[in-house]
């Protein structure tokens, strides 16, 4: 890289252009949440913001309960998922056998059955276990349905680790745990973070099971949205406010973890 390259003006402009374009719908959602219903429909850009919609949403439903449920289920399933998926991916990436690829495919194939197709069986299972409308049920379902994806992503992240670094660490006398903790984890932080985030986002946004397996106690924000999606009349501002409240935590979290996410392997010491 030459330092005194001309200022990357074209790249800067196009990157910003595309980013703003892609972000625009969200921006629009954001500002609509602060409009009155009339302004919302008139597609105005300038208006005096109001918090009325947020107040209304909070009045109607216990936002905090849903948010808490979302937090518990998505964090829970992410953590449990990582705990199960990391060892599996580690084992497949670093001790591959002839069957590894088949196992990977099989794992993915467990996700091929459309959720709707499995609704009744799962519903009956949950009911038999007495776990309808309970957070553990959601955590289990989220974890299991994200597990294949997590194993896949982690597998691909682990595969990027150069072989001889692993060899070096084994020679240094590291146990499996130490090897993971001190070398693989820091080297694949980006991949693990993206996987965790993906799982978090998927759980947070999961609507089908969240809706169908819960009623009054265990609903998540995604199921909260279902009660706003089509009330009588198009209350766009209210809908936007509810949506914003539902996605804001995860977006903010995503923004903060951005650095970890895009961090790839840092090479340079491998000849």
């Amino acid at each position, binding site marked *: 890289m030459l330092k005194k390259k001309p200022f990357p003006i074209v790249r800067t402009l196009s990157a910003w252009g595309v980013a703003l374009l892609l972000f625009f719908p969200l921006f629009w959602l954001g500002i609509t949440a602060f409009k009155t219903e009339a302004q919302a429909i008139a597609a105005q850009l300038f208006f005096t913001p109001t918090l009325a919609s947020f107040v209304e949403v909070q009045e109607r439903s216990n936002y905090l309960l849903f948010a808490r449920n979302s937090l518990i289920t998505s964090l829970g399933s992410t953590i449990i998922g990582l705990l199960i998926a990391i060892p599996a991916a580690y084992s497949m990436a670093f001790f591959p056998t002839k069957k590894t690829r088949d196992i990977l495919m099989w794992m993915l194939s467990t996700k091929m059955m459309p959720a709707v197709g499995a609704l009744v069986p799962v519903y009956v299972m949950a009911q038999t276990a007495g776990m309808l409308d309970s957070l553990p049920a959601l955590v289990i379902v989220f974890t299991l349905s994200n597990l294949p994806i997590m194993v896949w992503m982690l597998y691909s992240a682990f595969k990027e680790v150069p072989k001889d670094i692993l060899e*070096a*660490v*084994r*020679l*240094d006398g590291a146990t499996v745990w130490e090897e993971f903790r001190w070398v693989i984890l820091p080297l694949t932080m980006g991949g693990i973070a993206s996987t965790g985030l993906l799982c978090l986002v998927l759980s947070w946004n999961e609507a089908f099971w969240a809706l169908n397996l819960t009623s009054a106690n265990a609903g998540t924000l995604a199921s909260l949205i279902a009660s706003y999606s089509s009330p009588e009349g198009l209350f766009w501002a209210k809908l936007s406010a509810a949506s914003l409240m539902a996605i804001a935590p995860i977006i903010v979290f995503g923004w903060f973890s951005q650095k970890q996410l895009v961090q790839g392997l840092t090479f340079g010491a*491998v000849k």
Partner: protein
Amino acid sequence: MSFLQLRGVEKIFGDHKVIKGVNLDIEKNEFIVFVGPSGCGKSTLLRMIAGLESIDGGSLHVDGRDITHLPSSQRELAMVFQSYALYPHMTVYDNMSFALKLAKVPADEIRRKVEDAADKLNLTPYLKRTPKELSGGQRQRVAIGRAIVRAPKIFLFDEPLSNLDAALRGQTRVEISKLHRALGVTTIYVTHDQVEAMTLADRVVVLRDGMVEQVGAPLELYDKPANQFVAQFIGMPSMNIVKAAQLSQFGALAGQAANRVPADGLIGVRPEGVRVLPVGSAGVPGKVELIEALGADTLIHVDVMGTPMISRQAERTHLHIGDPVSLEFDLNTLHGFDKAGRMVSLA
């Protein structure tokens, strides 16, 4: 029973055998050097001893214990990789202290050991850098440092000094030698540098194409190579080889060897055994092909009726390319080989 025993060790990559049944006994505290042409399997053999490559045939014993299938983390080895294999996310200090940290060595002892090693390797100013901020030679030194801070059962070095300058190489060589004497750790060392091989080794193992050609003390290999390959591989520049069939042109040489070397055999003479005399002197006539002045030595390449001969002399020369010269040979250090390249005694 010897400390490290390799019995018919084999390695197969895909469909070709890379290590073809190596037998080797290494004593405790010995310093063994592996030499051999590029690609002959030195690294592979080292990595098999380290447990980084599976052993596809034969067995490996350490201290009488079969460790053929023991994972490398339990073999208590320290190794310098040919590719360094530094931890890219750790500083030089962390790279070097990592194994000690794992071994739960007290912090101050770690610090002492690492700083000591860094000092010996001229790395002190770089302890806070990450590998990618280092020069090639500095990286290599970190790789060495990482190995030598430890007190393993066996040291494995894979061309550890290849990227160092002559002075530093000499200095580091001395450090490794000292370390070996101080710790008495069995050491296996791969190198292409003849000086390293000659000065460090208790015994040198010459490998060729996955097989052991000869094992012996350095001078033993130099003076009594088991075959033409070893004779030519050890010594720089290589030993001159004359076909017995062409010996008639080589005067005195012919006389000395004729009755001992088979008619389809070969005669070898080291460059320092070849003296270049002004044309007309008694000797074998030839023509100067190339002159290489190395400073202390001068190498003169001479063509003797199609057979290339190299002479090495301590003096500078005034000869020029194309000059006709006479060659004289030191008849005491001739080597004879039969058709298959096996050594034939000339005594």
